[in-house]
């Protein structure tokens, strides 16, 4: 059982990180992952991600640990970019390895849902006309609360 959590101030390579999980643990029949990347739209030029050094890492660690406790996983990994990112650049990788697929799939969905509203990150959009901070959407809150209501997991 192992957890890896990282905050990266520079470009990340999510596929390379996923490659590290492949073929590593003979108990892991299933590896599931989610990659978030900067999506174009609304004149978006770039995204800036801010975090709370130390506290954000601890929150991600808590989310990964909660996933390990809740499902039978061999590994849980969260890598999150901070700083300025252009359209198309990766923002986050969440991955889980498990003996069985249901655990790996559910753990990834759990980790990305909870991370969105429960770990201290702040997102600023730069468009051609200026910049503004992003508020989490109602559906993001609902997704996290759906998981947390059932367990009292609290990331921070």
């Amino acid at each position, binding site marked *: 059982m192992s957890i890896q959590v990282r905050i990266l101030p520079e470009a990340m390579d999510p596929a390379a990180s996923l490659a590290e999980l492949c073929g590593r643990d003979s108990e892991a029949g299933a590896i599931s992952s989610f990659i*978030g990347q900067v999506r174009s739209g609304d004149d978006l030029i770039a995204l800036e*991600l*801010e975090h*709370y050094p*130390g*506290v954000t890492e*601890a929150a991600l660690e808590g989310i990964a640990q909660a996933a390990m406790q809740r499902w039978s996983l061999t590994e849980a990994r969260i890598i*999150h970019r901070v700083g300025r990112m252009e359209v198309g650049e990766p*923002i*986050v990788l969440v991955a889980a390895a498990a003996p069985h697929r249901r655990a790996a799939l559910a753990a990834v969905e759990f980790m*990305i849902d909870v*991370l*969105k*509203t*429960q*770990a*201290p*990150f*702040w*997102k*600023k959009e730069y468009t051609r006309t200026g910049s503004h*901070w*992003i*508020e*989490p959407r109602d559906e*993001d809150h609902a997704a996290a609360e759906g998981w947390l209501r059932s367990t009292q997991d*609290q990331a*921070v």
Partner: protein
Amino acid sequence: MTLNIRYFASLRDEMGRSQDALDAAVANQVSGIIAHLKDRDEKGWVLAEPFVRIIVNGVVAHAETPVADGDEIAFCPPFSGG
């Protein structure tokens, strides 16, 4: 003998600075810090907005959370990661 106050993201923009060092004597609860900053700072009222999350020494806190010398008290707008 200080409380280390931090403001993140939009709250930093509103307050016009990323941190404050307050004399530990000004408050012994989070609510006291907010009251002090509302008094002292034109923009201090944003810290009392219902959406603000407060983190004391890395742990989610509330108005009644006690604070003491050396504590780090962070005022955070809603998180939006991923």
